[in-house]
């Protein structure tokens, strides 16, 4: 059930590696010209179609790791690969969804969702038809002509998800996507995300600081230490799918995973707290 980071990834059927993170370290220069080690020697393989969460306290570099896979940040050391090719920059094979939504405020909901397909050269009418279907799928039918300003946080994140799904990325990179939402909205979005994911099983890399959320959503939870971020442990979540949150909460296996990971986080003995 538990695998140490140095072990090879456990086989989940005939799986192939979608993302390989190979001895990646990241150093930032702080304003005091001091080098700050954000990520230290991370190696991780993510299989095609897996839902993997990266869990850790704030400042552990988990978002930085996601940005490296996105190609938005290049690692100081090591290499990240997608489908075997080294990542040198952003690309439509990896679609980000950010906590801040980052919608284009001058575009309507439909305009935002159509943006990617249009950029990829899909004909206007076809892009519009696809986008309308996606908007319906994320539960926003009727809001096509609204501007982001007119929407609540949960609705904005639904638009952001649809906008990213619209250009068919092989990997979804989700950076604490539900972190800015209230508990009720968050639960609804988690359920809806799983429903959408279960249809086409895209590879998902999901960054969160919520143990609950990580266990509920993932096949695999990568637990990270405090700064400098290292992989503390990888936990395989063997819970049946499709999952519904209300049912899982009563499942002793679910509770066991949550408690196990909570204990891991509590135990700071192996954390990189040295100066």
């Amino acid at each position, binding site marked *: 059930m538990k695998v140490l980071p140095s072990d090879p990834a456990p086989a989940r059927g005939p799986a192939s590696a979608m993302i390989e993170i190979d001895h990646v370290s990241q150093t930032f220069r702080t304003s005091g010209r001091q080098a700050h080690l954000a990520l230290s020697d991370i190696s991780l393989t993510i299989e095609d179609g897996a839902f993997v969460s990266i869990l850790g306290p704030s400042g552990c570099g988990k978002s930085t790791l996601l940005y490296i896979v*996105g190609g938005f940040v290049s690692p100081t050391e090591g290499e990240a690969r997608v489908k075997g090719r080294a990542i040198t920059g952003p690309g*439509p094979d990896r679609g980000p969804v950010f906590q801040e939504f980052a919608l*284009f405020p001058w575009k309507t909901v439909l305009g935002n969702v159509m*943006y990617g397909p249009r950029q*990829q050269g899909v004909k206007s009418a076809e892009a519009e038809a696809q986008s309308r279907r996606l908007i319906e799928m994320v539960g926003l039918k009727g809001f096509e002509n609204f*501007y982001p300003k007119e929407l609540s946080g949960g609705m904005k994140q639904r638009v952001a998800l649809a906008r*990213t799904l619209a250009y068919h990325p092989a990997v979804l990179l989700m950076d604490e996507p539900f972190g800015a939402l209230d508990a009720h*909205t968050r639960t609804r979005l988690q359920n809806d995300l799983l429903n959408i994911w279960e249809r086409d099983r895209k590879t998902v890399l999901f960054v969160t600081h919520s143990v609950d959320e990580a266990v509920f959503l993932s096949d695999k939870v990568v637990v990270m230490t405090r700064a400098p971020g290292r992989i503390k442990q990888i936990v395989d979540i063997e819970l049946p799918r499709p999952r519904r949150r209300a049912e899982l909460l009563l499942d002793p296996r679910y509770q066991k995973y949550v408690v196990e990971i909570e204990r891991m986080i509590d135990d700071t003995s192996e954390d990189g707290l040295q100066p």
Partner: protein
Amino acid sequence: MMARALSRLAPLLAVLGLLAIWQAGSLMLNTESFPTAIQAVRAVPSILGDQESLIHILDSLRRMAIAFAAALLFAIPLGLMMGRSRLVASFFNPLLMITYPVPKAALMPIIMLWLGVGDLAKMLVIFLGVSLPVIYHSFQGARAVEEKMLWSGAAMGLSAPQRMVRIVLPAALPEILTGCRTGLVLALITMVTSEMIARQSGAGNILFNALDMGQYDTVYAMIIIIGAMGIGLDAAFERLRSRLVRWSEPGFDIPLSFA
């Protein structure tokens, strides 16, 4: 009901009140250099009806329009690049800090020395006057663009120049247009001052010639005409602006409560 009707009429009443005070003041002072409001307003149609005056005024507007357009074409791209590139910003920022507080009309004598008293000198002064606020606001607007928005664009396959035109420009547009509005008012001011210094043609020229010849009703009528031009241009620009950036206007943001 009464209050609403009154508030709608308020601007008109304010103008009429000002004219009444003017009228009363001038009747009391009774000097030649301060004509009554009625005399000044009466001189307006005769100026606008005069073909030569009209040509002068249209000349002014033409210079202003060309210089304003040229300034936008120069200032918006520069400001946006400064906002997104530290290198460009560190190069141009000191230059702007030096030129910002200099009254552009003060440069007029030097510019006249180089370019003469014709259109080019006047348009250059207007160009300088408009450029600085537009650069400044474009810079601020571009700097405030969310990094994640640009990342989202990059993931969709937008190249760096495409991100500049299709993300930074629209995202910074509300701020850019605020700068343009300030620029428009400055264009009118520098237009009149340039014509005051380099007398040859234009609305400012009519004004100062009339002043020299002691035609005070014409002087005041020209002030009314120039003022009305300013108000008209500003109102027209404001309408255009609010249409272009309706998506960002406050008061438009009543978020719906639904997940």
